[in-house]
């Protein structure tokens, strides 16, 4: 449905997207993962036909986003990073105004508004102004609005950033249902659990490039070990323990300020080996590798703004 080859986006001297390739198929949920400033949103805006590519090829639904923007956008739904709701209008009016942008008749909009508000559990707020709604409700309304034209592809730019856990789960639940209904989802996120929950396939972006691509499971398999042993020592013994641990076999080890991580096949076996060295950690945790381990391995632990 979407094909990018060597896609580039430049703003003056700054390169936001430095030649990326990806392909997207109907019905899948595809994620762009990456730290802030990795180029995720720029890519999303190019797919949304509101940002002309500076180079490379991009085809959406077999069409050219620059020449056929209106036709493509008629078939897309967009949930932007920042809500763009009209705060002074009511929930219902927001859907009315937006539906009209797509040339839908009043009857069609009324019918879909009822369905969509029901879908995002906002039916009882239909006649309320948007301004006082909670962040989670606004997000759900934005999702409802993006579906008014029954899009084939739904673009979600950080759909749950800034929401509390309940609101996030409510959004995930709705997105999961859309996926089951056959809507193709494209989302950006820097939440690993979100990517793991929703994405069939994802790319990890870092510094304007794609660092890795695959399903969450494949990525974990390729870039991490099955298990991770997390050890914590008293602060004064931390450094000494870290040096001694060099003798314990592990595929990869990471010494953080407060913990030491050992990437291994079997965490319990390794823990026994640690104890055999005479090291007794304050706490130890054996867990399965997650996307977060992959993410941190690929994009490093440096801090972006």
């Amino acid at each position, binding site marked *: 449905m979407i094909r990018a080859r060597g896609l580039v986006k430049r703003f003056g001297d700054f390169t936001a997207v430095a030649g990326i390739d990806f392909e997207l198929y109907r019905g899948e949920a595809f994620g762009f993962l990456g730290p802030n400033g990795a180029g995720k949103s720029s890519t999303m805006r190019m797919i949304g036909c*509101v940002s002309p590519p500076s180079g490379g090829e991009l085809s959406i639904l077999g069409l050219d986003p620059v020449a056929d923007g209106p036709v493509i956008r008629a078939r897309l739904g967009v949930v932007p990073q920042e809500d763009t709701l009209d705060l002074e209008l009511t929930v219902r009016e927001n859907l009315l105004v937006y539906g009209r942008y797509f040339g839908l008749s009043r009857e069609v909009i009324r019918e879909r508004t009822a369905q969509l508000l029901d879908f995002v559990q906002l039916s009882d707020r239909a006649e309320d102004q948007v301004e006082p709604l909670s962040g989670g409700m606004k997000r759900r309304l934005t999702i409802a609005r993006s579906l008014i034209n029954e899009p084939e592809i739904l673009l979600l730019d950080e759909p749950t950033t800034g929401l509390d856990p309940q609101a996030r789960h409510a959004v995930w639940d709705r997105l999961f249902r859309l996926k089951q209904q056959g809507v193709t989802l494209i989302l950006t996120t820097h939440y690993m659990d979100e990517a793991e929950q929703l994405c069939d396939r994802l790319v990890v972006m870092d510094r304007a490039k794609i660092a890795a691509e695959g399903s969450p499971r494949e990525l974990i398999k390729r870039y991490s070990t099955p298990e991770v042993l997390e050890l914590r020592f008293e602060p004064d013994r931390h450094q000494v323990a870290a040096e001694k641990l060099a003798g314990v076999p592990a595929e990869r080890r990471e010494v953080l300020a407060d913990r030491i991580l050992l990437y291994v096949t079997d965490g319990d076996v390794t823990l026994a080996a640690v104890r055999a060295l005479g090291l007794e950690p304050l706490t130890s945790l054996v867990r399965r590798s997650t996307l977060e381990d992959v993410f941190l391995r690929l994009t490093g632990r440096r801090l972006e703004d």
Partner: protein
Amino acid sequence: MAAVTTREAITRPPLAGAVFAVRELRFWLTNYRRTWRGSIYSSLLNPLLFLGALGLGLGSLVNQHRDAAIGGVSYLVFLAPGLLAATAMTTAVGESTYPVLASVKWVKTYQAATASPLRPADIFHGHMLFVALRLTMNCAIFLAVSAVLGAVHSYWALASLPVAVLTGLAFNATIESWAITRTRDTSFAVIFRFGMIPLFLFSGIFFPITQLPGWLQPIAYATPLWHGVALCRALTLGAVTLGGALINVGYLVGLTAIGVAAGNRSYRRRLYV
């Protein structure tokens, strides 16, 4: 939520431009439904205050001189068409500044529209259509109030309505094409203080341009408001000449066209980054 291609969306240019602009107009009308009552009061009050205080009040002094410079009519009759054009200017500048920045920066309704089939130029033209409607409303109310106060003597005055609207659109197109490029609203105050107020005072609304010092007169003739004032007045007083009217209309249409061309470009640059 079946994934079906929506038939109604496949409209292609050039007709699409007009269709899309009307969709944006309808967005503004929906918004306006919340505030139209308040705006009607100020559209009524404004002409009452100005025509009352200046036309009737100050006019009672001016009329004692019976000065030929104002064409031998009462000051109220002289003043009203000038203020009509000025009303168009202030309405247009007001609608072309803060609401535009609000739409692109504070509330981001423009960004919402760009996610639909609408293109930046459609969004711009849709807002211009809305401003044209607001201009027609405000100027029609102004004309009606002037008629009630006795400032209108001929049906020719009706012809000054479209001229006033055109005057407003010339301001609307040019200022809006600039306002969309702003990231802060501080420069709007400059437009009001150093743009609108001098134009308001020195474009022949309150006294004929011929009363200005000689070196200032060409500057006054070059401003858009003067062309609006001159033609509105000529029409209202029944003193219109074809040549003069063509120059005035040509100037205003030309300025509008320049503003539209500039706005097509600046809207695209702001909304398609």
